[in-house]
Structures are given as structure tokens and as C-alpha cells.
């Protein structure tokens, strides 16, 4: 079962909302599908993100995948630990493997994201 306090995209990102800030990462399912993650490329602080547009890249040994923003907003922080320890995305995808924080531009966009039940159903269907 995926964490119930998060919202999800069909591209396997998660978002945790805290006031007007959102923390974003990729799900355990996505990390497992990618395999050993060896590199994460994240945007500069201050950059505006647009919902569902690519904002970064995650690379495993074999594959390169885009990261897509669950919500629009301005980047207020990126996970400094991922430069030296990208494997945190595999080992702790909902915690130490978080990727970016944004100041939410349009809270209404959150209503369109999947809840835990819907995301669970998505990955169960394969």
C-alpha cells in the first residue's frame, strides 16, 4: 500500500502538501521500475515549474527518465543529499529521497491528482 497522506500523478510522482508548500518525489514503484538510481538532475531554486511539464531527470544504470511536476509553482528547495547519494531515491523514496519543494501556484491543481487508493489501483493494474 502506498502512503495515504500523499497525492500522486500517473507518471509516478508523489506530492506532500504542507501549507502553501509542496514536497515532490517519485514513488517506490517508480524507483523499483527504474532500478539502481545513479543520478538525479534537479532545477535551480527560484525556477517556475509548470504542472505536468518536465522539471528534471532521474537516471538508473540503464535508463534515463524525465521527472514531471505534479503542480505548478516556484522551486524553493532541492534535496542536497541526492548529488552524493542518489540511491536514497531507491532506499527511502517518500523520505530521504525527496527531490524538490515548490511554493504552490494553484492549489486547485491538487484536486486533479490521484489519491492513494487511485494510485494503488493504477500500479496494481500494471
Amino acid at each position, binding site marked *: 500500500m502506498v502512503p495515504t497522506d500523499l497525492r500522486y500523478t500517473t507518471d509516478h510522482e508523489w506530492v506532500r502538501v504542507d501549507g502553501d508548500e509542496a514536497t515532490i518525489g517519485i514513488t517506490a514503484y517508480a524507483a523499483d521500475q527504474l*532500478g*539502481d538510481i*545513479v*543520478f538525479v*538532475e534537479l532545477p535551480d531554486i527560484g525556477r517556475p515549474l509548470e504542472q505536468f511539464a518536465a522539471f528534471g531527470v532521474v537516471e538508473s*544504470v540503464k535508463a534515463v527518465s524525465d521527472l514531471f511536476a505534479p503542480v505548478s509553482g516556484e522551486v524553493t528547495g532541492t534535496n542536497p543529499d541526492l548529488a552524493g547519494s542518489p540511491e536514497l531515491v531507491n532506499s527511502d523514496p517518500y523520505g530521504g529521497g525527496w527531490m524538490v519543494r515548490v511554493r504552490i501556484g494553484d492549489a486547485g491543481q491538487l484536486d486533479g491528482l490521484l489519491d492513494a487508493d487511485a494510485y494503488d489501483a493504477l500500479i496494481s493494474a500494471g
Partner: protein
Amino acid sequence: MTDALEPSVHVTPLTETHRELGARLIEFGGWLMPVQYGSIIEEHRTVRERVGLFDLSHMGELYVEGPDAGPALAAALVTDPPSLAVGRAHYSMICAPDGGVIDDLIVYRLGEARFLVVANAGNAAVVSDALAERLKGFRAVLDDRSLATGLLAVQGPRAREVLAPLTDVDLSSLRYYAAAEGTVAGIDALVARTGYTGEDGFEVFVETSRTAGLWDVLLDAVRAADGLPVGLGARDTLRLEAGMPLYGNELDRDTTPYEAGLGRVVKLGKAGDFVGRAALEKVARDGPSRRLAGLVVEGRGIARHGHPVWSGERRTGVVTSGTQSPTLGVPIAMAYVAPGDAEPGTVVDIEIREARVAARVVALPFYRRNP
């Protein structure tokens, strides 16, 4: 009659076994093969530090036999197979008349007039057809046993201790690039001290029907030595660290052996003509127009196949293979660059998405095992 348009891939006798072991399967060279059972990095390190078991049943096995088998292969390939002692093997290539590489091969001399040519899976049919054509006029026959032959590899520093108790082949006297016929786990086999990992190891050829039985015995022995089954993902990172070319990446029909840094493989001094000789003599004389270089990425990013390589504002070449090196902990790559940019120590830029990332040319291989 089956629908000819239906997409199809070969399976090995182990495909279901791989699935049961949790492998992720991909199509490679026309075959459904395991890319990884768990973590590619863990499988890679297991081969470097202990031992891994590979299913390589997709490879092509082409036997050439007859009084003229040696001379026929000398005329068909860039190497000189008649110079091999019985029981020895060498790395070879089959080239087109223009010198382009059709495939890279291992040639084993199994008898005075009996050779085994091992081709890449995706090229096996093309090589088989080309050899059949090139054997015309020679007293030699081609026996394509690709589908009838299974191939398992045991690779890593513990490979010998894993295999020795199971075989009547004396592994301690079996040299690198040598092969001997015998039994493994009671199964008739050809045991070769060859591999594609940069480690010591063995490749075991058996009849297809015996592959599954051999796998079970070898997997138990490999696991008892703290080893793992290993997929094509780690096979690729292992060979890249070892500086070995992969057909389709470093080698193709538009590439000559000299560009790939493999000019030493081409035996221009051998007697007689061979396919590609005139074109290859010209490249050997004039020098190649590009050279394969090893690169260590010094900035942030991982170079991948197809990324452009720049020297200042001059585009000097393109990345052929790249990954994060599990052993070295840095991104490594191979790339074709202009000859003047291929010297170790040269700094170039790799275009990774929108960024230019600095990389340094280093001598290949990236990794060499302790003797």
C-alpha cells in the same frame, strides 16, 4: 500456417526459469533475455568480487569443418585461424569488402579441421549467411548450431573454484582463450576460458536440451560461493569497464577495426586475400578518420549513447556507450572522436541534454583486474 506478421522472439530453455527468479526480461538481438534479476549494481559487484552465472544462449554458434576449414576462415575473416593451435581461441571480426565490421567473433580451433565461430545474437543469421557464401569453393562446410546450442558463463574471481569440482576438464591448465571438450555435471560440454566481463571465467557450451539441467547445477554452486545469476544489464556495465566493444554501439557496418582501436586484430601479414583486405590496408596506411576513446566525465551528468562530443566549438564526435561505473563510482563512456582528440589527458565536452559537461580522455580499459 502461423501469421508471418506476428512479432516473435526466441526464448531460451531458461526463459521461464529467469522469470521465476524474478528477472526482468527484454528483447535483445531477437531473443527474450534477462536484463536483471535484482539490482544491476549488486550483480555487477558480485561478478567483480565473487562470481556470477549468465545465460548466453542467445549467442550464435557456427561450426566450420572440413580439410579447408582453416584456409576458408582465413579468407572469410580478418584474423588467421590456421595459426591457432588446436584447443586455442582468438578474438576476430568478419568484415564487408569496404572494411566495415559485420560482426565481432570468437574463433575456437577444436580440431585440425574443425572450428567454432561464436557470433553475436543479433548478427548470427547474417554471419551464418556470409560464411556460407564465403565457404564456396573450399572443402569446408558450415553447421549453424545456434539454436541447438546453449551457452552458460561462470565469471568472476571464484569461477574456477565453482566450476572445478563439477568438470573433468583440468581448469588449472586451461589457459585464457583456450577451450577443451569434456563434461560438466555429467553433461557433454565445451569449456572455454573466455568471457566478456574483464574477470577470469569460463563459458560452457552444451546441447540446448541440456541447458536447463546445467543451469540448475551451476546456480547452486554459484550461490554456494556467494554468487548470483547476472543479467545483460550488468554484462553491459562489466564489459564497458573492461573497455570491450559492443556490436551496435562501438562496432557497426560503418566502422572499421582500426577506428575501434582493434587494428591489431587484423592480420594484414597473413597469406592470401580475405574479404575487406584492400580497404583495410588503405585504412591501416592512411590512418582512421576517427578513433575510439575512453572518457571519464568530470562534471555532473552521465554520458549516454548518442550524446555529441565537442572540442570547444568543434563537434569532434559522439558517445557510443556510457554509464555510471559501479566499480569506479564515476560516469564513464566510450566515444568516437577526431584522431587529434583521442590522446589520454585531452579534455572534451559532452553535450548532455542542454548542458556541456567536461570529460577527460583516458586510456582503455577503465578497469583491469589484479593478475
